[in-house]
């Protein structure tokens, strides 16, 4: 009752209430502060809401188009520099020259065959590396022995740069396709392993308790709880793995290759064909973007259950 009088009464009345509040409940003891604050006018601000809030930030242009502006500007500058002669063609070919070169390389079959050779290597690398990483992660994540044997070793090997394994791998496997694919397999298996095994271990133990309560068998536990629970981590690993796969492909193809995008670029280097090199770079970029987009698409499809999606 006293509180009500404080908030609804006029200022003078409030003072009286506060002064006579010797009965001393915590409610009235705070009222002097409330009175002095209420005497001051409060500075108000109108918050941007609804349409005002949005239009002040953007002019209705889709975000994707906005982002393209920067790219277009960059290419235009580059082209101008090449046309005017600031950029010599033996240093860096302009975009239009590179485009022509690209069309020519596509027509004479150099680009398609190089692309196919590169795609095959990455395909094999991912196709073998992903299951190897996943199986190792399950082994380490689900059994004590697996954790002791697999995890301790892999966590140590993880810090060896894969590129530094190349001399040893060449000694073991020669300079053919096997060594190139092997490097990609190793590079892919690690991020898949690390992210999936961490995801398995971080599944909320409450769900294991639940599976005890509802009587899940070990197989059911893996199928219904462990695998779907580890999926987000696995997909993070997959995105890293695809990026690493392209990186290692470039490295493997610029050394001892007789086919592929990297080989095409290495050969162009000998003849200062910078336009061909640009074609190679663009091809790598496009392939990387496409594979990343594919993984993102898979993520969206498989993780609709996640809160915040």
């Amino acid at each position, binding site marked *: 009752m006293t509180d009500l009088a404080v908030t609804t009464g006029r200022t003078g009345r409030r003072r009286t209430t506060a002064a006579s509040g010797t009965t001393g409940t915590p409610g009235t003891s705070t009222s002097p502060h409330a009175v002095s604050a209420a005497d001051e006018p409060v500075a108000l601000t109108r918050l941007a809401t609804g349409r005002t809030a949005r239009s002040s930030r953007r002019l209705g242009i889709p975000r994707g188009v906005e982002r393209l502006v920067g790219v277009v500007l960059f290419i235009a500058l580059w082209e101008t520099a090449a046309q005017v002669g600031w950029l010599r063609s033996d240093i860096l070919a302009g975009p239009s020259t590179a485009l022509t070169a690209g069309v020519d390389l596509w027509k004479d079959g150099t680009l398609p065959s190089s692309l196919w050779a590169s795609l095959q290597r990455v395909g094999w690398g991912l196709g073998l590396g992903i299951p190897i990483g996943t199986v190792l992660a399950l082994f380490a994540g689900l059994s004590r022995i697996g954790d002791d044997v697999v995890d301790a070793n892999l966590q140590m090997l993880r810090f060896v740069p894969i590129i530094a394994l190349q001399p040893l791998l060449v000694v073991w496997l020669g300079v053919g396709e096997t060594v190139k694919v092997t490097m990609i397999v190793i590079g892919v298996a690690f991020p898949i392993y690390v992210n999936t095994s961490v995801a398995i271990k971080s599944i909320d133990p409450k769900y294991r308790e*639940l*599976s005890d309560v*509802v009587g899940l068998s070990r197989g059911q536990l893996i199928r219904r709880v462990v695998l779907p629970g580890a999926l987000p981590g696995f997909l993070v690993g997959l995105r890293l793995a695809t990026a690493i796969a392209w990186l290692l492909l470039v490295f493997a193809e610029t050394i001892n290759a007789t086919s592929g995008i990297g080989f095409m670029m290495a050969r162009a280097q000998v003849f200062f064909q910078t336009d061909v090199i640009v074609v190679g770079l663009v091809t790598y970029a496009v392939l990387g973007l496409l594979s990343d987009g594919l993984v993102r698409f898979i993520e969206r499809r498989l993780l609709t*259950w996640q*809160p915040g999606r």
Partner: protein
Amino acid sequence: MTAVIEPTVDLDGLAVAARGVTRTFGDRTVLRGLDVDLRPGEFVALLGRSGSGKSTFLRALAGLDDGVEGEIHVPVARSVVFQDPRLLPWASVLDNVVLGLGGARGEAATAGRAALAEVGLDGHERDWPKTLSGGEAQRAALARALVREPALLLLDEPFGALDALTRIRMHALVQQLHARHAPAVLLVTHDVDEAVLLADRVLVLTDGRISLDEVVDVPSPRLRGDDRFIALRSRLLAELGVDEGAEGNRPAGATPAGTLT
């Protein structure tokens, strides 16, 4: 752990028989030789202050605690509802309800749909758990418990995380479900009103022992304003060491709560 050993108690007419249940964590003894029986269909509330070990006892009956000592007999068919709904976020509501349910897939799905309809969640079968409100998620957890047709239903503060209005609706639902399926129920709670409202018998756990075991003698429908409701409520609160703060009840010399001295 329990079924293999020859029982030393007469299990006739009992749904739960627990004898000398003791649980020690390090040098702290939480349960000191508890003896608790539940008859089939009996609704028992276990009250206790936080940290009194009431959830520990429930987990022992659920078979989730292998560090517990004593003799425990529980039905094979038993279900647990935890304080959190504990639905698998990556499985649909229906898949959550029928999780681990044996038998043919179609049969399980039919039973699951029926259980969801019973808790008022029909139409949500294919939804992700993230789309459910707190109360709906807890009802789905109830459906998951019921679909197993348990002879013993263990409720571990299942309404603790719900808002007051949802809790009232959940109380009514639990009463209905208990009347229809008649499992023995052990409800662990710190809410005295909830215990008096729902249970046939109330136990109070203090210092690892059952300090009070009282049949709830309040005619239904139980109303909070009923004299016997209020009397039992006061007794239970006193047993839990809570001073209700009413002027007349305050012991002489005690400091009223909230007064600065």
